[in-house]
């Protein structure tokens, strides 16, 4: 009994309930009472910090071994989980992009992309995000070849480029468009633009948080030749976000 008790206690954590509670308070803030937004945000942030800290102290768990893994013998479980998660992300953005196509096919009039959007800024942003993806690949490569300085520099630049992308979007592009009367409530071209690009932006922001975590680990020297799955998994997500942007760039700035 005591053995089972100890076993069940191992790995106990209050963070799931705190994180879930924080998200719920955040939702209450969005829907009912705005000040709760701040409270929820702080709780989520603190919970994430705690999770990060726990992650920093954690040793890499060895594979349990003696498993039946056909056909995924060569893929570890974190990476499998990430790929499965990306399937759900594909469906999320699939739903959004299909909604866009549905609306646009139903509309009798749709403005030319060049009328409303600055294609030059869009291109710059595309380059920024693609370069950020490149930096993630370089980070993984440096980690695999044992170049710890390279890993740190590459992760830092991936993070900075992600922030630059968001900065250009939120700091420059959206205010400019709002000033010209291109607001979320003025019509379907506007609604689709802000909703889809906004949801993508949230994904970029989440990616930046994850890269921060990787960066802290890298600064502590936790990535070595053999232990670098974290970079690879966040990288998968980051490249996915990048690919989504390729679609969004095409439909909003070119078509």
């Amino acid at each position, binding site marked *: 009994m005591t053995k089972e008790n100890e076993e069940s206690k191992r790995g106990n954590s209050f963070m799931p309930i705190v994180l879930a509670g924080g998200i719920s308070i955040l939702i209450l803030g969005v829907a009912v009472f705005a000040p709760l937004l701040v409270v929820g945000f702080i709780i989520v942030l603190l919970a994430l910090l705690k999770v990060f800290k726990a992650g920093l102290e954690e040793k890499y768990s060895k594979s349990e071994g003696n498993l039946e893994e056909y056909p995924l013998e060569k893929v570890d479980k974190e990476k499998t989980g990430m790929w499965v998660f990306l399937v759900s992300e594909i469906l999320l953005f699939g739903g959004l992009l299909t909604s866009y196509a549905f609306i646009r096919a139903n509309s009798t009039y749709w403005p030319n992309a060049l009328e409303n959007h600055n294609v030059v800024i869009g291109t710059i942003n595309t380059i920024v995000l693609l370069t950020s993806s490149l930096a993630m690949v370089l980070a993984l490569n440096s980690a695999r070849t044992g170049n710890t300085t390279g890993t740190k520099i590459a992760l830092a630049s991936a993070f900075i480029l992600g922030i630059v992308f968001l900065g250009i979007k939120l700091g420059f592009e959206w205010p400019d468009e709002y000033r010209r009367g291109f607001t979320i*409530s003025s019509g*379907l071209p506007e609604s689709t633009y802000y909703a889809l690009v906004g949801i993508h932006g949230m994904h970029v922001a989440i990616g930046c948080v994850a890269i921060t975590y990787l960066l802290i680990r890298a600064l502590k020297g936790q990535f070595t030749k053999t232990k670098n799955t974290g970079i690879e998994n966040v990288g998968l997500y980051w490249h996915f976000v990048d690919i989504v942007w390729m679609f969004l760039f095409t439909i909003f700035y070119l078509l």
Partner: protein
Amino acid sequence: MIKRFSIKEWLSTTNHKRIGILYIVASITFMGIAGVFGALMRTQLATPNELFLDPFSYDQIVTFHGLLMILWVLSPLGVGLANYIVPLQIGAKDLAFPRLNALSFFTFAFSGILLLGSAFAPGGGPDVGWTFYAPLNTMQFTPQTGVTLAVLAFALLAGSVTISSVNFITTILKSRTKGVTWRRMPIFTWSVLMTNVLMLFAFPTVAAGMLLLSFDRILGSVFFSSIEGGSILWDQLFWFFGHPEVYILVLPAIGIMAEVIQTFARRPLFARTVFLIELGLVAILSQLVWVHHMFTTGVNYNLLETFAITSMAISVPFEGIVIQLVISLRKGRIKVSTPLLFSLLAIFTVVLGGLTGVLQAFPVLDYVFRGTYWVVGHFHYVMAGTTLFGLLAGLYYWWPKITGRTYNERVGIISFILSVIGFNVLYFPYFFLIDMPRRVSTYTFSSGLAPQNFVATIGAFVFFAGSALAVLNLVWSYRRNVTSSSNPWDSKELEWTKNYTGNLPGTPETVAHSQRLSERQGQSSQEDDRAK
């Protein structure tokens, strides 16, 4: 199992067994609430021109009953059982990501609390039905905050389900112990795998819909208030999730029924591989039938034809499943007990629910049935029938495993009898209410709908009593200190025997395996008897 109860430990747990129990307890709590809502609805509908509930309250109760029963009761009850049983069946220490498992439970629980809390939001709760049809869901027609909160609670639930399905799929892919190959994996685990694949495909789409709707309601975008997007866009996004959701509910129940029948008939499932192929076909086809919810919206003719065909096609593998479950009982040495009785009831209801469903796959008939109590009868036969009884069977079946207690068989059978009578008296009259529209709080005396409704209400209370008794029986058995043996049903399945490696190195002795063996021995001994 009995330890000092520590609430701190339960709230911080990441153990799959404990989270499974938490899921089961939470979903049964929600079931109690949603069941009371159902009873209130039937009370309102018992007599014509009833003023027991005003239309606004009635609409809210309809909404809560539907949302809770589908997304916060039946679906998580299956997830809870899967949480407990699947790692045991595949010999894993825990799920692949235990802390994410805890996160998905708590987001699920809090999203349910948020949904119920939306009843107290300024302006009243959601009164849009579980489908949130556009443009009723826009600010113009439902300005109350409750709808916004319900939409966000739904989105949070979608997040929770996505996390848990990632967890389950990864676990089943990566954490099977040596010997549990794909062919030897128990049927319940197979059904859970398929359920989670469906969840992974279905929930993100509705999350996209809910996000767009919340932008509409909070930031003022115009997706669902415009003509170009509007109601058809919502229908597409919602039913792309909504139809697979029906199968998400029913597949774990089918898996449980198969496990229960092969245990209590003491005979392996008839043509196990074919059964699994049929489950797979159901899973694939269920992704391809969603437009049959939209036959009357004026979708184009080719879609109508295509989706009528796929909707009829999905009944073929389902018939196979039912026939195999029944054939498996043949020549079995059947031991009658509560889990088996509930499984048989579930088979009966899936036959009736399925037959009435096929009729609706014909667009011509769908034009007549759309939005009437016929449809309500049909999906309650599948959901409240097959799914609920299947899951109850699972709960009874694994109760000794989970708690180490035996329940009272006699009370179990009484609850079964009450459920059979109550369920059928409640829902069968619905097939004679083709003239009565859904979601309307009352009807006139001259409509001639009064007798059926009155009978249904009586059935509702009997059914309520039956299912409450079924749950209470389990709770009572937990209070009383009757310990059961580690394998009371004498099952050959892996979660009971834990015989992952079997007799030969690397081969688990599964039901299909060992029972076929023992049957052969039995046959040969019979032959010996004859020879003597």
